[in-house]
């Protein structure tokens, strides 16, 4: 029977069922009311675990067997080892050899190093991925080659899905730079230090079985622990969980591109002239070259004015660390450390605090850190005339990025998207986004090298920059300008087949990605 397709509150056609599970169409921002109680994993008993607390087993395969791995299970991993991850692929290599089929891989993100996973999608070991899909994995999905339907969630949406029982993790395999034999684990120390492993916290609490994999086993207690041993079933010691130089970049760099620097200039000027940059400001910017340039320019303004940011929310980089050390920033609350300086800082500076997304991004919780942030600097692959944003597909229709924390961050007071008006010849402002990831009502300002567009809903911001000399334009004017230069693009052609679902932060379906017409 064909699955019923309905129009959701954003006007997007979405199915009522995905991968055999009923789903709720997007209802509007803050409209969906969750019901029932949180999911809970089975109750364990101490009597099943060694009295001496030593949960170390011989190999990952042994641990997976002891966890009772079988067809159709959901296996989760975290992405703190980024492009240096040696653990995730190994799980499926083992499962494939064991002849296990139809697993669901539930990573907090995937990286180019995970491209070999395609092999296990091809041979049936994995049915589908519920998580971000970049590069070749995204292309694989867009070409309709994955058996199941991909489900993309934000970092906070992932936690929400775990907590609400939308996704029931059978086995969480959590790579840990440092751990003890009881399963306490942290992101600092050892040769594969990544700083923090906060994305794994929800997995450890809600999965039926939890395996910690480390290459740096230390004596109990591993402190301060981010993963608590009480949640852990087995500990596996391996030679290497990751490739250090790919886990953290040696150093993150601000962009050298004159156009990107111009965007950063304009962004800093907008933040200053609109008055949203002020003493005590709270701000988050990513680790991309433009965001880093903005952070540096903001730092200069803070210094000039003698202001201080109360705290910054990481992704932390050396630039944030510098602000913390020089006194322009009170604290760094950190979900992931991007470079070596950040890793070192989180280990040594008591004001650089590991902060699991669990506490920060989950929409189904009693408050949300992102809504307390004053300034949020984000990117997008496309923005449409209604300020709707897309971060997962490119204008050519291919799925190429994960959502990351993007949707969660949209709840900040001032959401600013500094983006180039066109990338090579590809316009960024479109009539309608290829894939809707964030509703326009939450996106406040688009800053391009050719002008700044403010969401008409933000009359306060519009008033604040009157007479500032900033190049304020409408999105339509910016779009026309780009099309005059680049030409009007054709639309990509899609088949009916749905290859991926995009979840909103509350677990509802905000849009789907369809297969590219070959």
């Amino acid at each position, binding site marked *: 029977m064909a699955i019923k397709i309905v129009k959701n509150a954003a006007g997007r056609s979405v199915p009522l069922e995905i991968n055999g599970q009923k789903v709720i169409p997007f209802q509007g921002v803050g409209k969906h009311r969750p019901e029932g109680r949180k999911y809970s994993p089975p109750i364990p008993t101490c009597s099943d675990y060694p009295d001496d607390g030593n949960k170390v087993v011989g190999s990952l395969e042994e641990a997976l067997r002891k966890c009772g791995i079988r067809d159709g299970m959901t296996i989760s991993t975290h992405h703190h080892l980024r492009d240096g991850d040696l653990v995730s692929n190994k799980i499926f290599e083992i499962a494939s050899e064991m002849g296990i089929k139809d697993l669901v891989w539930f990573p907090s993100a995937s990286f180019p190093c995970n491209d070999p996973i395609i092999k296990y999608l091809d041979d049936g070991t994995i049915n589908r991925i519920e998580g971000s899909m970049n590069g070749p994995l995204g292309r694989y999905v867009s070409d309709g080659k994955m058996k199941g339907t991909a489900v993309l969630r934000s970092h906070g949406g992932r936690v929400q899905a775990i907590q609400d029982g939308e996704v029931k993790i059978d086995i969480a395999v959590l790579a840990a730079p440092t751990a003890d034999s009881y399963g306490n684990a942290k992101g600092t120390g050892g040769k594969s230090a990544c700083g923090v492993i906060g994305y794994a916290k929800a997995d450890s609490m809600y999965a039926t079985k939890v395996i910690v994999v480390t290459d740096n086993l230390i004596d109990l207690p591993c402190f301060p622990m981010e993963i608590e041993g009480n949640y852990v079933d087995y500990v596996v010691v391996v030679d290497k969980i990751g490739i250090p130089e790919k886990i953290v970049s040696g150093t993150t760099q601000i962009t050298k591109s004159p*156009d990107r620097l*111009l965007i950063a200039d304009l962004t800093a000027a907008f933040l200053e002239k609109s008055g949203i940059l002020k003493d005590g400001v709270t701000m988050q910017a990513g680790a991309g070259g433009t965001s880093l340039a903005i952070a540096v320019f903001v730092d200069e303004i803070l210094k000039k004015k003698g202001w201080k940011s109360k705290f910054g929310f990481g992704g932390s980089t050396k630039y944030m660390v510098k602000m913390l050390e020089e006194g322009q920033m009170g604290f760094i609350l950190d979900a992931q450390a991007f470079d070596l300086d950040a890793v070192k800082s989180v280990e040594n500076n008591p004001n650089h605090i590991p902060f699991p997304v669990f506490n920060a991004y989950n929409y189904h919780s009693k408050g949300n850190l992102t809504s307390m942030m004053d300034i949020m600097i984000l990117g997008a692959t496309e923005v449409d005339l209604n300020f709707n944003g897309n971060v997962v597909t490119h204008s050519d229709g291919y799925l190429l990025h994960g959502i990351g924390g993007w949707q969660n961050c949209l709840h900040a007071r001032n959401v600013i998207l500094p983006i180039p008006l066109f990338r*090579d010849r*590809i316009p960024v402002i479109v009539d309608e986004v290829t894939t809707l990831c964030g509703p326009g009502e939450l996106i406040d300002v688009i800053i391009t*090298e*050719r002008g700044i567009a403010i969401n008409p809903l933000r009359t306060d911001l519009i008033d604040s920059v009157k*007479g500032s*000399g900033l190049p304020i334009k409408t999105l339509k004017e910016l779009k026309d300008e780009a099309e005059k*230069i680049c030409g009007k693009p*054709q639309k990509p052609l899609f088949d009916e087949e749905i290859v991926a679902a995009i979840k909103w932060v509350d677990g509802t379906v905000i849009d789907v990605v369809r297969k590219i017409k070959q």
Partner: protein
Amino acid sequence: MKKSIAIAGNSGSKIRSDCEITLELKNGGGIIIDLNSKVKVLYGESIKELTVEILKFYGIKNANVKITDTGALPFVIAARLECAVKQLINTDLEYLPEFISENAYSTTRDRFRFSRLYLPGNTPGLMINAGLHSADGIILDLEDSVAPEKKDEARILVRNALRQINFLGAERMVRINQGEKGLEDLHFIIAHNVNLILIPKCESTDYVKRVDQEITKIKSTLKLNLNNTFLMPIIESALGIENAFDIARASENIVGMAIGLEDYTADLGVQRTKEGRESLYARTRLVNASKAAGIQPIDSVFSDVGDMEALKQNVVISKALGFEGMGCIHPRQIPVIRQGFSPDEAEIEKSKKIVLAYTDAKNKGLGVVALGSKMIDPPVVARAQKTIDLAIRMRFISSDWIDHIPTEEKL
């Protein structure tokens, strides 16, 4: 027929916004296009249509065309294809993309030329957004930044860029090659509203005069109502410095004279230093010659693009010596240079008062402008207005600043 296969343009992992076209003329089979483009889904059809249209324009009915595209804009694709065609057939036909109306502006002899951004003439990716960086001038360079074997395709690309890229009010400049090649360059560009021609390595008045005559000749053949084409000779040798005053007066159209210190120091056989003591004589001599001839002296580019502090110091010295501008080789140098040469806050405030007084007098129908008890002459008002315009262009103040002045201040 010359040869049968032609290649034009650039491709490779580091190339962006460009394309490489391989054209092979055939005796039958029609036009076959092999398009490999990163924007194929979005622009594949339009790239093919453009290709067919251009080949038709040149009367080519049968050809294999291979296009490797990294997001080239249509005028770039057109330039590359035209260049490939011209390697295979003899033709004087030019496939001209639309001349956008925004590009028709003229410039004046005395406009500010604080910062002029050099752009390599065969690198389209750097041209498209060049106007955004608020340089007073944009120099499309056909000389040193273009490899000898790429000179032909650079001319066509620069011509198309002059027609299609909006440099947003920057003075539209081209640096031509030396000698006969430079004179040939003029035939590609003069018809497309070049505001100023930079003439490299000038040593005597002869060549400057030839350039001037060639421009006049081209303009009279075109019978178009064209804007002024100003000239800026660049002095880059000891002999050039000795002849600087004569060169400065070689043509009515000369508005400024620049110094090129890399070549000059090489000619002297000395190292170029950041302090520039070795070129002090040349620089002051050039400034004096320029001032005596009533044109703008322009300082050499500063080549360390990473060191903004040293650049800043350099500008201070340059301004103190009497220079009125400096070349830029990276957009990030522009604000530093403009800031260095441009009016400061006090000057802007004073100009605001003068303009306000003038507006006030005009509104009241008064013939005489006064600020307090002081009478203000028209040239002073004009100069103040220029300062205000510049401050707006540099985003020091808003274009509607006058509406934000409290009424009591206006009076």
